[in-house]
């Protein structure tokens, strides 16, 4: 069902965990639909220096979360905001059609974390 790359990112997830002093945290999904993820980001000079995730969900959900952390690290906030669900799926070499939407929330999670970061920055200002 999944290709080898998806299986790799699922079974050897990159950047798992939380960041204690995260600059932004994004939480998306809900337990009813079976996918939840939390994305933590560290930002320095407008660049994502660290991204971590925790995910409850199927293979696709874990693999996409795992992939997006790798894709986001080192990117500017603006660049990171441009990453779409499709980009994540493409970077993974494709996902089963049925998984394209429900279990591919990772870009939403990243965007939510950036929103959170910006919100907190605004408060600080």
């Amino acid at each position, binding site marked *: 069902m999944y290709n080898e790359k998806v299986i790799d990112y*699922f079974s050897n997830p990159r950047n798992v965990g939380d960041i204690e002093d995260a600059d932004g945290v994004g939480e998306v999904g*809900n*337990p009813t*639909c*079976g996918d939840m993820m939390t994305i933590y980001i560290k930002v320095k000079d407008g660049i994502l220096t660290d991204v971590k995730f*925790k995910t*409850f969900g*199927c293979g696709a959900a*874990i693999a996409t979360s795992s992939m997006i952390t790798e894709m986001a690290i080192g990117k500017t906030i603006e660049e990171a905001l441009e990453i779409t669900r499709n980009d994540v799926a493409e970077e993974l070499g494709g996902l089963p059609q*049925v998984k394209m939407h429900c279990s591919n929330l990772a870009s939403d999670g990243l965007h939510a974390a950036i929103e959170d970061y910006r919100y907190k920055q605004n408060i600080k200002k």
Partner: protein
Amino acid sequence: MKRIYMDHGATTPVDPLVVDAMLPYFTDKFGNASSLHSFGQEAALALEQSRKMIADSIGAKTEEIIFTSGGTESDNFAIKGIAYRNSGKGKHIITSTIEHPAVLNTCAFLENEGFEVTYVAVDNDGIIDVESIEKSIRDDTILISIMHANNEIGTIQPISDISNLARKKGIYVHTDAVQSIGKIAVNVDELGVDLLSISSHKIYGPKGIGALYVRKGTLLQALAHGGGHEHHMRAGTENISGIVGFAKAMALADERIVDDTKHLTHLRDLLIKKVMDSIDDAYLIGHPTKRLPNNVNIRFRFIEGESMLLLLDMKGIAISTGSACSSKSLEPSHVLTAIGLKPEDSHGSLRITLGRGNTQEEVDYLTDALVEIVGRLRAISPISGKKSSFTVGSTPDM
């Protein structure tokens, strides 16, 4: 890597003795059972001997067995066959919320065709309440279709009580015995049913063959039209090799049922105990005793079934899950929903269906693997271990 198959509810390997029984019917005794010559008569003989073996096994008469292409066709045939033929008498059908899709989707189809269907609920253990069936009976009820044993949670239903009710009112009873056959006793008179579906590939026989038992005198409409095969009820050149294999599998199941039951019940209960002892927040789904000897269904909080399934698969273990993420519809299992599990609890369910060939060592291996995998997934779960902002509405007391 060692491969351990524990998904016998989905399908089973064909027994080598069954393959041996089938082989001559491919290249040697390959005739068409409708042909008058010796090739045909050889096939016709095998057909009728197989029919008798299957009839004998379930206490039926030979002519009450109609071969089909499997359990799905048998269910479709039984329900549509009764509905169309008896619609003059009434258009109401009673079934349950935990039937196999072959029954539920056939009923849904018939609803579109103007039939009315009552879906009787089950309790939290997955057992149907006979009284609520009784209450659902109407003057225009023509059929009650309740499965003998459930494919996901293994619960066994009180079919003979239902038949007793139905018989008094002249209502036909169909039971889907696809999961129970070969695992617990199945006798059409003891169950009191008029129609009963079975499938070969769940009992170490080949795929693509099954049967429908039809009690003599039952008014049923033919499903497939064509040559006069199967007493004009189901046309199509008979799949002799499949039928011979199916009959052999039935005979082997009968021979082995006492040993199998002992072996499977032992492994089942051992597995449940081991998992419960070694993993927190794990709960058995379904009835503790009124369940198939080979069915274990457990849910693990905070994690999701498909990811468990995949990690187990990497360790060579094959099982299944009721999680929505494993299904094409992205709905959690209708059975788990019917027994009152919240969607978030269905997500973490695993179904382990043991087989004749499984061993205690394999159960140990599975338990160890589960301990590791559940731990690993919980470690990356945003809702386990630490307080989360997500509200997790689970029902741990079920």
